[in-house]
């Protein structure tokens, strides 16, 4: 069967199957009632507290700092974890990455170089308090997807004003990049994990085995 005819066959079968739908009924997303929560008016401090608590529940490490203390906290984390080489994506603000480490600058690293790097330091697009999630959308300082996948340690910096309470609030913020092939989106909730053995959650499969989130207070 040629490519076109398969398309015609499937669409034809769908239309035949939907004979009970009146011709006058048109596709309309507004017909769906959305009575679930789409905004929350929790104070920022509460939001940040919940975000930290829930990221930690998935055994990711969380640190808090002020904008001035950020570089110091990043350096401490690298030292604590024995990271000697760090992948730095394009667009990461000057001064974040500790100068005494081997910094591997993107773009241009090979998969092999990424694989051998000890860790990666990135910014993110948005954080979700309700679920303890950070979202990357390939924006400045976030790098391509392999950067936060191959190195075994992911250090992710988030500013308090990037944290929203609910999933719908995060989805709304991501709408503008959703149709762009150059802006793939990744939701990250804790380090790589599996529940495949007796439905017990175990951290550390194929993605980074360590996730560390640094929350920066808004100035």
């Amino acid at each position: 069967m040629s490519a076109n005819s398969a398309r015609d066959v499937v669409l034809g079968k769908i239309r035949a199957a939907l004979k009970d739908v009146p011709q006058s009924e048109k596709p309309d997303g507004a017909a769906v009632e959305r009575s679930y929560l789409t905004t929350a008016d929790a104070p920022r401090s509460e939001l940040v507290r919940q975000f930290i608590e829930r990221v930690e529940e998935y055994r990711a490490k969380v640190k808090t700092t002020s904008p001035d203390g950020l570089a110091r906290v990043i350096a401490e984390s690298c030292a604590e974890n024995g990271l000697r080489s760090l992948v730095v994506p394009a667009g990461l603000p000057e001064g974040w990455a500790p100068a005494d480490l081997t910094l591997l600058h993107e773009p241009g690293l090979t998969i092999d170089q990424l694989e051998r790097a000890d860790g990666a330091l990135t910014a993110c697009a948005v954080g979700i308090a309700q679920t303890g999630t950070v979202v990357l959308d390939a924006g400045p300082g976030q790098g391509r997807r392999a950067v936060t996948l191959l190195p075994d340690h992911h250090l992710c910096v988030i500013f308090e004003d990037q944290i929203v309470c609910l999933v719908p609030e995060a989805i709304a913020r991501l709408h503008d990049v959703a149709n762009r092939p150059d802006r793939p989106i990744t939701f990250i909730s804790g380090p790589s994990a599996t529940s495949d053995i007796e439905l017990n959650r175990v951290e550390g499969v194929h993605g980074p085995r360590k996730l560390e989130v640094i929350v920066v207070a808004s100035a």
Partner: protein
Amino acid sequence: MSRHAPTTRAELMSRDVEPLPTHAPAQPFPEAARISLADVQLRRNMGKVTTTIRAKRAKAVAELPDWEDLREAGRAIKDQTLRHLDHYLIQLEQAVTKAGGKVHWAADATEANRIITELVKAHATNEVVKIKSLTTDELGLNEALHEIGVEAFETDLAELIIQLAGERSSHILVPAIHKNRAEIRALFRRQLADTENLTDEPKALAGAARAHLRKKFLSAKVAVSGANFGVAETGSICIVESEGNGRMCLTLPRVLISVMGIEKVIPSWRDLEVYLQLLPRSSTAERMNPYTSIWTGASAPGDGPEEFHLVLLDNGRTKVLADSFGRQALQCIRCSACLNVCPVYERTGGHAYNSVYPGPIGAILTPQLVGVHNAGSLPYASSLCGACYDACPVKIHIPQVLVHLRGKVVEHKRDSLSGRLAPESLAMKTLGRVFTSPRRFERFQRLGRLGQRLKVHNGMIESLPGQLGGWTAVRDVYPVAPETFREWWRRRESGSTSTPSSREGQS
């Protein structure tokens, strides 16, 4: 394909059984269930995991004050989408194409396998990495690839486990749920290199899988995946996972082929806000699964596959769509909550359903996909307790659809000569005649009262003779009353004072 119906657990679990009973009637559920029920270890494993996950899910769901509103929205969006499925699929096709992806349509499994194998051949590789996908299981894709000399490597931990064991999946989310850690350890030590000192700690087992698959991820040229959602508005495809094997497959190979059932399309970007809340809490009972990947078309240079193919698959789905009541089965987001709460599934495990879609959702999906003539026992694989409906995040009324399909099974039987002459059919026809005339009905009651004399014990009939015995195999039947209401009424009118017990002896 297996030549005879399985008689042992090993045969029942074997990949020789068709993924869907498309070509011939499946082994009836009660027969297959009996084989599973004899496996004590299986019952212990299943009881343990379903109890654990049920408690966790209840907690994850209770945390959201708007859970019922989310369920209703999840149902309504899918219902709207299905009612205008052609419109949204065309919109999706346009958006994916605009973003540099290529869209293929496949009416059935053969066609889909042909498209995929040709794409793989065109890239001159003899291995592909795979993200766990029920849709490709349904196609028997791994076997089709094997026939052209291409090996498919399953990268999800549970899929890897059953692939190494040569078994079929028994759960839509956790395919190896029937195996406990000791069994998995034994399997890995037999099949994987450098595992002499492997313990049965889940962490160690996951580590062994990581080491085993790492090189494959780095060298594979082609990846094959399913899809959780396809957004018509933006052309974005969404995959929800835990381990990072999905991210590996979506990021490192040069070519990505995603197979998506036509019912997985959702109209707008915004709709993800509903399903990304419903799915994780219903499946692994987490607030959010570790990784969710969303991409649109072919990737930008250096950040993922330069070539992206989306295969839109029918394979029986339009048959489900044509039944305006049974259609709701297509709302399913494959969370597996219905399996975990089902008292039947908990005891028999997934293999007894003889389909890649086991459990309550499988019992309504499989017969509709392949026709009740090939899976007619599945609508009866339920006690109709309704737990599945309560757990379903998109409110599929599974018990009602089961009853609806039982009707279809009976209709189908009536349509064939052997069915018309079957004892059940003849008995129903006789009863039909009896019930349509009061006089015949009363004569039948009197006959019954005579016939039941030796059968009534302690006021109940415990076994009926002959073919009727099937009915009493699992339940007792009330005998015909010594005096019916109508008899009593007539007696009252005629002024007779004798009591029925003086006229009819009761044993």
